[in-house]
């Protein structure tokens, strides 16, 4: 599904060049649940941004579903992204001016789904995430756990092949956190590939494989059973 080879990314200021990713290589197969761990500043988030096609690498290769996307321009990336990738963020990142329903509906609007189909699909996902009763509320009116469930609903509404989750439980208490992890596990069991960046050993245990990083490089890879 995802294969990166010798991926490189630098950040340059006027005088200093910081290496964020240093010839990083790994592969995530379709249907896999991979966790990426490491201390702050090791390049986890940079990696996730590149995998999510929000940023482009400075070197190396990135094959998504067998297609080389490292040199894609913004438009091509956006197009590939909206059909294939869902995002879940630590800080939920819902649009405050839109209701729960409208937030979840947004990706469907951008992929051109017809209004009637959109409503059916959004209702289905909200039902599944058990926040149907909150569909007309605005994000500020929800608890953190509920907000993250909305974010997950938004990430999956388009049936993406891959979900990229950046510390999805980072802003949640443990019980809400577990609920979100259960949701991700369910999605994975239903066939969605998941790549999750986390600090939490507890959360990492939900995955099949843990990739540990330090200074932009892969240190170890543990396969969990």
């Amino acid at each position, binding site marked *: 599904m995802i294969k990166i080879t010798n991926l490189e990314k630098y950040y340059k200021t006027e005088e200093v060049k910081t290496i964020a990713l240093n010839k990083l290589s790994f592969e995530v197969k379709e249907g896999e649940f991979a966790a990426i761990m490491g201390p702050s500043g090791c390049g986890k988030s940079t990696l996730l941004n590149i995998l999510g096609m929000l940023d482009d690498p400075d070197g190396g290769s990135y094959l998504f579903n067998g297609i080389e996307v490292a040199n894609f321009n913004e438009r091509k990336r956006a197009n590939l992204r909206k059909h294939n990738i869902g995002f879940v963020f630590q800080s939920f990142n819902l649009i405050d001016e839109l209701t729960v329903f409208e937030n979840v509906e*947004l990706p469907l609007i951008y992929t051109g789904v017809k209004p009637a189909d959109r409503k059916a699909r959004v209702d289905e996902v909200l039902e599944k995430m058990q926040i149907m009763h909150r569909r007309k509320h605005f994000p500020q009116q929800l608890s953190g756990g509920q907000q993250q469930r909305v974010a997950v609903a938004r990430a999956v509404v388009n049936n993406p092949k891959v979900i990229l989750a950046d510390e999805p439980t980072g802003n949640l208490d443990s019980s809400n956190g577990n609920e979100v992890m259960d949701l991700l596990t369910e999605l994975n069991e239903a066939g969605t590939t998941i790549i999750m960046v986390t600090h939490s050993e507890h959360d990492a245990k939900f995955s099949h494989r843990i990739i540990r990083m330090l200074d932009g490089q892969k240190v170890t890879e543990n396969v969990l059973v």
Partner: protein
Amino acid sequence: MFKNHIKIAWRNILKNKGFSIVNLIGLGIGVCACLLISLYVVHESSYDSFVPNSENIYRLQSPYSMSDFDDVGVHFSANMASTMQSEFSEVLKAGRINDVQSFPGAGENEIQINSVPRQFHEEKFAYADQEILDIFSIPFIEGDAKTALYQPNTLVLTESMAKKYFKDESAMGQTIILNGNNDRPYTVAGVMKDFPENSHMDYNFLLTLKDMEFSEGEQTRWFLSNYYTYLELSEGTNTEEFEKRLSQTMIRKYLKPAYLKAGFDMAVNLEENMSLRVQPIEEIHLYSSDVSYEVGKRNDIQVVITFAIIAIFILLIASINFINLSTAKSAKRAKEVGLRKVVGSNRRHLIFQFLSESVLVSIFAFFIGFFLSVVLLPFFRTATGLELSIPLNEPLFYLVFVGMAVLVGVLSGIYPALFLSGFKPIDAFRSKSEQSRTIFNLRSALVVFQFVISIVLIVGTLVINQQMDFILNSKVGFEKDQVLQIYGTTTISDQISSFKEELKGVDGITSASISSFLPIEGTRRNGNSFSKAGKWNIDPAIGGQAWYIDEDYLQTLGITLLEGRNFRGKSDSGNNTTIINQEMAKQLGLENPVGKQISRFNDLYEVIGVVEDFKYQSMKNKVEPLSFYYGLTPSIVSVKLNSGSVERTMTKIEDLWKEFAPNQELRYEFMDESFAQMYRNVERVKTVFSIFAILAIFIASLGLFALSAFMIEKRRKEIGVRKVLGASTASMVKLLSSDFMKLVFIALLVAIPLAYYFMNSWLQEFAYRININIWVFVLSGMAVLGITFLTVAFQTIRSSVLNPIKSLRSE
């Protein structure tokens, strides 16, 4: 998709109430100002466009230039029209109008209906040919427009006059007598529609020119120029080529020989000095400022252009608020942009979304502006003196209005849209989306631009006000206070001397004088040529006025006699004596004028006195040569009142008037009011200019207020930290306002030369004018600095009195 955009736009408007209010109110006021000014501009540009076939109708003009004298004449001899028609096949019709007041019947009259003795005063009389009705296709209510002025002694009056005097009766065939002249009764031969407000012609009564000859040879002499001449040219006439042939033929074949024969030797060079032009009637209203001696409510294209520019500037200032506030609050929208991109939006979608928002705001603002305009229209009508109305029945109006709303929305939204949609999603998520330097500079440039416009407008307002004060209060060389002008005294001309004598006997009246010539525009004028004695036709003559006055004139109007003597009375009648002004003496080069002789045309006059120059025309013009002669011109009696009870004196004057003219109402005006009337137009420009200058400044301040709020919001943490470290509120105000103050200084540097240039060229219109004083700029600069400082200081103090912990915690 579009619904979603509208929805989020609406919620954004509601969520950022302060921002939205500034945008909506600012833009709304801008739209209102723009709409009102547009009504004015459209009205002023629409003159005579309602005339069918207006594109082929012209008025004859003759630009004339001599060494230091340039003028454009619009009056021609009586035979010009018919001669042109027989000479040139492209002249389909030619017609004349004579409204020169010295022709009895033209201008103002006392009228009697049928044989009823009661006299009414009416204005706007002119003599006209039947061809005028034809050329202008003047619509008729009664009578036949094709023949109405075809018979001698007929007249056509307007619908409103017909209603006034004949009510529901038909006006046709009724008799009207002018100034008690029973020998020449006029028969009403037609009722025409009133001339629309945007007509350069404005008459209530058209008297036929058929068989008229005002004096011997008046209809055939080429050098007696009293007629406006209108032409209808055949479709597709090349006017430039036509004018060339017209000038050649008419001047060479007719004018020059006639002038030379009459003894005007200067006409030798007439072909070089004079030409004939045809002016499209639609241009008469706005492009006749070079024409002197024209009565009517002409405007100057410069004034119209100035107002149009102000309208655009006001809208620009409001739009700049929109741009600045949108980019300033970009940080708040950055997250949303990032998210939308993450879930699949591309840049096009986002640009479209932001544009929908700005168009929505703009449409709202246009509605607010529309309703404001409806409410303010009556005041604007008073300010402009025009019957303006919003063309609600015109579909085009709605189209243009909505089109403008969308255009303003797109233009003011495009920059923020491009800017916001350009955020990269990963940058957008970093809590501080860095403002690039270029944005700040662009915003500063726009703020400077707003300040520049504001400063120029403030300077403009101050200078116009000063100039007006200068005109109204400056020494004019005559006493205009406590002087009463009694009009319409022509009807008692046989007893006018005894009326005057009795007036002089009334308690409270210092003196009284009979003369139709007064230093007030709209009273009688004439043009004469003068030269030193014996130099007639040898030296180039000078142009000047020849006024007929009585022995009490100088005293009544407080005009100073510098040397020589005043007229003594009837003994000076016909004895070829004259009193001249200083300018006349100067231009004729007379060292000690008293006792010398001057030529007026071919006649010699002895100078018996010299008066100090007094300003007898609008101060836009320099005082020109003037000479007085003893004689009775009985249409106006001027009365000087002493400072006692004006009311009691007025009652006595009215009683006296009733004795002399029992059938005519007393019609009078105080001279200081008539004097102010001369400057009504400038006064209006002043009012309108001041109003819109204040509006522009208000909108700019509104924007500044909101912008500084955003800038300070962004620096809340800094303010908190500084406070924790011990900064005082005063030092915070200084720190935060200095950025804006710098912009004001830059704006001042740009605005002062600009304002100086514009106002100086405006002042050139006036022969008597103020010098632009340095303090005008100081005051304008202080005003803008003050407004800026107060605005920013208010915001700073508000945020710096907050508990710093609060601002730090919220980070």
